[in-house]
């Protein structure tokens, strides 16, 4: 949902807002991730073993991942989408369960590509 408002003094061309703008600078994470360049490898660089996750009640990955890539299914399984990963390392550091996550960097040239960071 576009939530870009224009200021009266601005000389910039903002993206066209199609709905009435929200008053504040809201953050829709999906939209934010849509603005980031990811070169997606066909091979996931992080995999998780749900046999280990099944015994975990803390599930700190769900909350801590800045891209919210860990999602709990209704069946209680955790699924992980590696495609929009910032490769930060938060998940393996907060996890604390040996063997739950297999964590590697993506192959050279793949993964997140920042431009204005």
């Amino acid at each position, binding site marked *: 949902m576009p939530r*870009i*408002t*224009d*200021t009266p*003094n*601005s*000389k*910039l061309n*903002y*993206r066209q807002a199609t709905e009435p*703008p929200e008053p*504040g*600078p*809201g*953050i829709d*994470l999906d*939209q*934010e*991730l849509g*603005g*980031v360049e990811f*070169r997606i490898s066909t091979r996931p660089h992080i995999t998780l073993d749900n046999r280990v996750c099944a015994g975990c009640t*803390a599930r*700190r990955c769900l*909350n*801590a991942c*800045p*891209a*919210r890539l860990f999602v709990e299914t209704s069946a209680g399984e955790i699924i992980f989408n590696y495609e929009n990963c*910032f*490769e*930060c*390392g*938060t998940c*393996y*550091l*907060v996890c*604390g369960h040996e063997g739950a996550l297999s*964590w*590697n*960097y*993506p*192959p*050279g*040239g793949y*993964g*997140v*590509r*920042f*431009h*204005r*960071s």
Partner: protein
Amino acid sequence: MPKEMEVPMTAIEGGNAAYFDAVVVGAGPAGSAAALVLARGGAKVALLERGTEPGSKNLYGGVIYPAILAQLIPDYLESVPIERRITRRITMLVDDGRATWLAHDNPSWGDPAAPNAFTAYRPAFDSWLAGLAVAAGATLLPSTTATRLVRDAYGHVAAVATDREGPPLRTRMVIAADGANSFLARQAGLMKGAGAEGYTLGVKRVLGLGAEEIERRFNVASPGEGVDIEILGCTGEVPGGGFLYTNSETVAVGLVLSLTGLAATKSRPEELLERLQRHPSIEPLLHGAEPLEYGAHLIPEAGFSHWPRLGSKGLLVAGDAAFACLAAGLWLEGVNYAIASGAEAGRAALAEFDSHGAADAAAVYASAMEASFVGINHRRLRHAPRLVMSRATQVGLPRFANHLASEIFSVRDPEPKPGLARAAYAAAHRSGVSPLGAGAAVLRALRTFG
């Protein structure tokens, strides 16, 4: 985390295995500084970068303090890609809708020939610095992920395996400048025990505003100058802080969050960031800005207590991988510490090469780090990261500052004005700070920063 696997030496002893005097892993500020020093010293050096270009995997809190860069590259200002020179440094203490600002304007910092600090985009800055290393003779290998260290029969690091085709790169010195996670330092057993408590998570949003609008909103004196705002009290239940700084055409706003604190709550990083953006003191600065890029990165903030062993035979660790960045509340610096540690690592490697192995690079590097501002400041400020993340600093200080300012500056005629001591006592009481607790916090701060 990948486990170190042994590659038989025969696999890399073949005739076509490339040999380098040094292989630097990571073309960030530490790695490129190391490669630059090594190349200048005549060494054959490879500079590995897993991104398509240096800096494309890097994200930071936005300000570079270039004094050490100027020492390494005296004419750096002729080519460095600067966004804005920082001429105003603000510390903002936030409590609900209120904010108390401590601002320092320093026009001399705006001197184009000698800036104290500037903002820059890391892909541009890191690519620039790596380019200087290449110009000095280093070989940059982009889109190359180092996968493991290879050791010889004596247990010395002898090669680096990568995800490129072909045998591992043979070398007599690996410089692991592979960032906050440093899997190489972990694999080598130098970073044992660095868990979540050693790190913070930085999340950052870059918003387009345009140069004129930035100069108007942030009231900067002249084009090319800018503002750096550090914010305390804006991260809810999670220990951390916020930042807001100006680039040429964009502003960056973000948070730094304790990893353990984040994991212990149900707070989401972007929700906390949104809350900061909605603060009445911040919202007018960002209103209507166009979201351009969002990102996150780990910061090894724990400081000296978490420094790994800085090297072993054939391996040196530099930059974020060595926990070299300084997160001491008053001072939030990283790129300068990375550059300094990388340059020292490069010099130490050269010392070993030039002495034909009589000098041990790891020992030379460790003492050089100890003697440089990197080691001195880190040792001196070793208690600062914990103090900054303590409840007294995180909650007590911003509440107290705002209650005190409100107590002093609210005019309540016909009530007589309170004396300053009484105002401070009342502010402390309202902030939930006991006189004893306040005294202890002041003593701790003096011990940490004195």
